[in-house]
Structures are given as C-alpha cells and as structure tokens.
C-alpha cells in the first residue's frame, strides 16, 4: 500500500469520511470538520485518490449564477471504506500490548 505515513491528520480525515461514507466532501469542509490545518487536507486527499480510496468529481453549477467557482468533491470508495476502517483499528491498537482473546484463553 502506498500510504506509509500514518499521521494524526490522515486518521482524522479518514474518521470524518467514514462518518458519512456515501456523502460528497470538499477539501476545506473536511479540514474544518476534522480540525486539521486547511492546507494539510489536500496532500492527504491526493494520496487517498491515488490509492483508490476516494474518487473525485467537479461540481456541476452555473458559476455566474452562484457567484462562486465550482468545487471538487471527494467520495469514499468501497475499497477506501474497508481500508479506512482497518487503518483506524490499526491506529487505535498501535500502542496496545498483545493479549490472548478471552475465547482463546477460556478453552
């Protein structure tokens, strides 16, 4: 897997994406919800897209009517959903000492 640097920002973004896996999110919105540096979210989204964890599409609006330029939205893929869940579990367990599961110890 290409995402070898696991940072707090990456994990925060993955958490927010997983909260609404079917929804579309744009960069600054994710940064605000994940409470990370606004500039940090774009390298993360680029890496996630290159790994196939998210897909992107441009907003279909009339820029003159909306008085703003169109946004690029990101959505979690199926692969990204399962991979993000694994990453979150791995992140939460990274400092835990291994112990036998109760069902294995009971037998």
């Amino acid at each position, binding site marked *: 897997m290409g995402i070898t640097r696991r940072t707090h920002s990456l994990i925060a973004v993955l958490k927010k994406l997983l909260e609404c896996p079917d929804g579309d999110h744009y960069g600054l919105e994710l940064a605000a919800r994940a409470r990370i540096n606004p500039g940090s979210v*774009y390298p993360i989204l680029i890496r996630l897209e290159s790994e196939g964890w998210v897909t992107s599409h441009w907003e279909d609006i009339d820029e003159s009517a909306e008085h703003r*330029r*169109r946004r690029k939205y990101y959505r979690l893929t199926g692969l990204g959903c399962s991979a993000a869940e694994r990453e979150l579990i791995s992140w939460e367990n990274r400092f835990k000492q291994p112990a036998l599961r109760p069902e294995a110890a009971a037998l």
Partner: protein
Amino acid sequence: MIWLSLVTFVLMPLTVAELSHCCPWIADKLVVFASTKVPASAREEQLAQWQGDIDTVPGQLLKVLKATSILLRSPAAGRAIASAIQRDSRPVHTTEPKPSRARSLNSYNDRLRLQQIGVAIDQQLTPLEKMVFLAVRVDRMSCDTLGQQFSPPLSAQKVQNIVAGSVVKIHNSLRDLESDTE
C-alpha cells in the same frame, strides 16, 4: 491632537475597509502562487480546486488565512501529485502470487513435546511466548490463525519469530537438562 483624531477616526477605518475589500484578491494571489509548487500538468486543475474552495469561505480575512495555510502546505501537495503522476506512468508488472508463508506448528510439536516440558522451561519464556504456546495447545494451527487469537492480532511473521525464538530456548534448556542428568 487633531492629527491623532484624523488618523484614529478617519484614516484607520478607511485603511481597514480598503484592506478588507482587497482580501479576496490577496487570497486569490496567494493561491495562484501556491499552485506554482504543483507539477505543471496538474497545476490548472489544482488551482481551480483551491479557488473553488476559497470562494466558499465566509468573510474576508478568513479567506486570506485559509489561502496562507494552503500556500504553506503547497509543497507537500505538489509532492503528492508528482508521486501520483509517477506511479500512474510506471508500467504495471504482474507477478505470480507467492505461496503462503504460514507454517504449521505440528513439526515442532512432534519434535519437542511442548506440553511435557512446559514446567522445566517455564522460567525461560517471556509472557508473550507463554501466551503463544497456551494458544496453540495441541491443535495443529497455522501462524496466521494463531496470530488471530490475540488482540490486537499478531502477524504471521511475528508469531513465527516468537515460536522460533522459543524453540531455541526450549532446545537449549533441554540440552542443559540432559547434560545435568548425565
């Protein structure tokens, strides 16, 4: 005193109002400068993305602050894009799938009779090594499966390393026991 009043009540508010009107323009310029850190092939698209996001930011000064943050992190964005472009252009090599490296512990069981020598070497093993042998019992089990008995799960490689290290300790202890009894 008059000059102070003039500055405080006339010039400063005018300056602040002027600057706040300029903030969207400043934010746009910052973002354009940030896009120069991105590879040329992706520059236009990335700039459009950043401009579209900045347009949604409420207020004036906040646009400048967000644009500054984007500018400060733009080298990282440029590197991420360059890495993605390089990966896309690399030819894809397919390889034959490697056989699983998980091994059964049965061979160790046959040679060493782990349960019967448990007491003699108990002091040699670390708590984790003891847990590994407790989990395997007399079952034939792959290292993958054995690793799944733990929370958080242990990788197959880690289980192999633990078993290999433990086997060496057990073997050495047996040899010492045999030499003591002779």
